[in-house]
């Protein structure tokens, strides 16, 4: 049975990081109203699923920055509906500098059983470019505290930071792995939406790793993580066996999710719904008893199956040859030729067990493959 996952957006941060493109407010001025609205939205939308949530994910923003009571009340509201499964994975994103023993205890006591730590880098030269508040030593302490207190911890690592080198990246990765996390997500710094970084790139292009270098970063991370027993179960996620993110897997396998909170997105297999991206409007609408939904996209059957291949190919196991063949048959001749080229270039492999997946090289050039499916 496809049990649903719940995503809850917590749009508050102590400080906005340079590269962030998510909906977030600085400071806690509006926390109370948002608290009430979020709980109200969950209650109002209880009827949408009669299946218990299998995963809950607090994303942000910075869920570790707000009062744990907010998260607690949200969980309680979820339980009051179809409920939360007994073995549910409950994740909260956390910032290293928010974590002290009191915060750790509080999060654990309300039921959070997985932390996703926004480490990004353990280099004190690189952190200032991102305007993260922590320093490397603080991040290491927070990681240690997290792995001690929670059975499952993930860390985010960022590639492409100004000044980053293969050496500094290896050092950050080593520090993260040494802390005992069981899960690793690697991001590419996207500077397009960060004016400060765009300006910096104009002035000091030499600081930014080029595409070839980034490709090497990626290969280095994969080699090191694999050596430490991690498996790349998705294009940019590595985990020890059994420690995959159950929540994120729902996105990649098109299982149902419900999104609560400002800018949150849910998907039921055919319809993708997204709440308004304005926190103010979100609170106002919900507290007035209206829906906060702003965008609703219904995928055609063709779009839905194409998307399932696009997302499925992100996964280590890929997709079945049968479903791949069925979907590619609906593509234009040009797109089919492109996929044929991709296979010849060694980006796609067809396994004997009847599955199609991206190769090592294919992971780095995955857009060449994916663009055939949009």
């Amino acid at each position, binding site marked *: 049975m496809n049990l649903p996952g719940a*995503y809850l957006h917590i749009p508050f941060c102590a400080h906005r990081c340079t590269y962030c493109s998510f909906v977030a407010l600085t400071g806690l001025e509006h926390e109370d109203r948002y608290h009430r609205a979020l709980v109200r939205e969950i209650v109002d939308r209880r009827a949408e699923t009669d299946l218990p949530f299998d995963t809950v994910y607090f*994303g942000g923003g910075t869920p570790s920055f707000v009062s744990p009571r907010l998260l607690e009340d949200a969980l309680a509201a979820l339980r009051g509906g179809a409920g939360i499964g007994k073995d549910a994975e409950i994740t909260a994103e956390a910032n290293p500098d928010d974590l002290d023993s009191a915060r750790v205890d509080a999060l654990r006591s309300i039921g959070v059983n997985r932390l996703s730590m926004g480490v990004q880098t353990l280099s004190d030269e690189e952190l200032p470019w991102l305007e993260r508040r922590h320093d490397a030593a603080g991040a290491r302490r927070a990681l240690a505290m997290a792995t001690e207190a929670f059975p499952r911890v993930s860390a985010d690592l960022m*590639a492409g930071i100004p000044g980053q080198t293969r050496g500094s990246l290896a050092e950050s990765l080593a520090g993260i792995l040494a802390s005992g996390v069981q899960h690793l*997500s*690697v*991001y*590419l710094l996207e500077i397009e939406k960060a004016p400060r970084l765009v300006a910096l790139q104009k002035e000091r292009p030499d600081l930014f790793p080029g*595409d*070839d270098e*980034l*490709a090497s970063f*990626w290969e280095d991370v994969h080699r090191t993580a694999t050596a430490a027993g991690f498996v790349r179960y998705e*294009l*940019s996620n590595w985990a020890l066996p059994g420690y995959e993110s159950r929540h*994120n897997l729902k*996105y*990649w396998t098109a299982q149902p*999710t419900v*999104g609560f909170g400002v*800018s*949150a*997105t*849910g*998907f039921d297999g055919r319809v*993708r719904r*997204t709440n308004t991206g304005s926190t103010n409007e979100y609170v106002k609408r919900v507290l007035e008893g209206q829906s906060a939904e702003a965008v609703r*996209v219904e995928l055609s059957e063709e779009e839905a199956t194409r*998307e399932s291949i*696009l*997302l499925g190919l*992100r996964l280590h196991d890929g997709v079945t040859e049968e479903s791949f063949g069925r979907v590619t048959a609906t593509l234009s001749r*040009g797109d089919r*030729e492109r996929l044929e*080229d*991709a296979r*010849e*270039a060694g*980006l796609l492999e067809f396994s004997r067990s009847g599955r199609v997946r991206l190769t090592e090289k294919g*992971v*780095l*050039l*995955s*857009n*060449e493959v*994916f*663009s055939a499916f*949009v």
Partner: protein
Amino acid sequence: MTDPSRIRNFSIVAHIDHGKTTLSDRILEITGALTAREMTEQVLDDNPIEKERGITIKARAVTLNYKAENGEKYVFNLIDTPGHVDFTYEVSRSLAACEGAVLVVDATQGVEAQTLANAYLAIHNNLTIVPCINKVDLPSAVPEMAREQIEEVIGIPAAHAALTSGKVGTGVRDLLEQIVHEIPPPQGDPDAPLKALLFDSWFDAYRGVTCLVRVRDGVIKKGTKILFMGTGQTAEVQEVGVFNPKQLVVPQLGVGDVGYVIAGIKELLATKIGDTLTGAERPTEQALPGFQDVKPMVFASLFPTESDDYESLRDAMEKLKLNDASFTFEPESSTALGFGFRCGYLGLLHMEIVQERLEREFNLSLVTTAPSVPYRVTTTRGEILEISNPVKLPDPQYIEKIEEPYILATIITKDEFLGGILALAEERRGKQVSLEYAGTSRAVLKYELPLNEVVLDFYDKLKSISRGYASFDYQLLEYRPGDLVKLDILINGDPVDALAFIVYRGKSQDKGRALVDKMKEMIHSQMFEVIIQAAIGAKIIARSTVKALRKNVIAKCYGGDITRKKKLLEKQKEGKKRMKKVGRVDLPQEAFLAVLRVD
């Protein structure tokens, strides 16, 4: 029908941007053909691309009534001429329909290359030239300088040239009086067999072809059976009339009249500019002189970026051709680019305009190949071939000789740019014919140049060397032998036929090197390594490599991101769509024109 002694037929000729259209509009306004409100649009140019570029392509004729200061009423037929070097023949036919020409010279610029070329065309057609110095309202106007140049460079008296401003209207009445008194009235025999010059024609779906004519002898009216002497087409006249500027039916057109003839003709090709119309039952003995079948001198191929668009492209070109008989095309099949068309144009500007219209008006995405000229090849077996597509050039061992078209170029420039221009002309295999000074700082330069050196960005280079000041005009000379070779471009080992071009042997090495380097800049990294080579016959003369792409990845993708990520992918894909896939390589459209971008 007007008494011929009261008719004045004239054109206005000028260098581009010297204010011809504005002055024409002002004349229309003063003669009452248009109200000031209607003047907001420039009437004579009715094609948006022409308007945008400030160029008039199709000739139009308007019939105007003018009451002169002596109290007499006159009929003016103002024949507008195309304003670009590619359309010399059309200009000369429009001039042949007149007795006089108003030569407009910009008081801030002086005589330019087209002023000179047009003046000579007018003199050649035995026209009376009425010089006119325009834009005198501008603070930078120096009418004396313009006057001196007209006298020195062109060699016609200009002491009494009207000083006009088309923009504000000063001096235009003086000019109109000069037209009355200096341009001779038309002469002809009303009782002789019909003899009329066809100087423009166009097609519309409702009425078929409309011909603009100038009657020399006889009369033409509804019911007249006419014969086009050059093409042999016969037809019965359905309607004759004039444009004033609105279309106005008249009973007949007689000696000296300029007007339109509609005769139920469906094919523009049957009505060639410069042809003579005569009566089918009582034809004239001698056609008017000067009729030519104009041939395209610049050829380039057009391919749709999406092969599915082939039919739409053909439809679009057929529509375009309805109104542009000088544009030619025939189907072409390229191993690299699939199905497309080999198109012939009068010149480079004509080519640009046609391509732009196809893309804009018909919403097509096109790949254009580098322009070429028609070569005359004599094979070892003694055949003479006309080769307008480098792909069709026989293998070297079968070629006895290749001949290429030459032009006589006239360049007028400030002398400070002379050094750079001389160097450019020499580098393009030019042979200097003359170099003269006009006034203190203007040089008039004549060069014989191979047309093949001119179609590849000569004009752009000239403009950039002279910071936009030098002006250029040309006329075709003849074919001359040339030491020419075909340069092939290979992508991943396979020759790409659409990239081949013909080049002077002495430059082939440098050109090949520069071209592969330029293409390397233009071709993005992709899944496979791309090897670009230049070759003459079997010999590779240059090579460069575009390394394979290593990274094209969107690293993270969670719930709310999927839509955004898909948009990014779509954007990437759109970019690729504008490229042409050759084998496994995506080539951007501009790569096919890379040869225009190398020094």
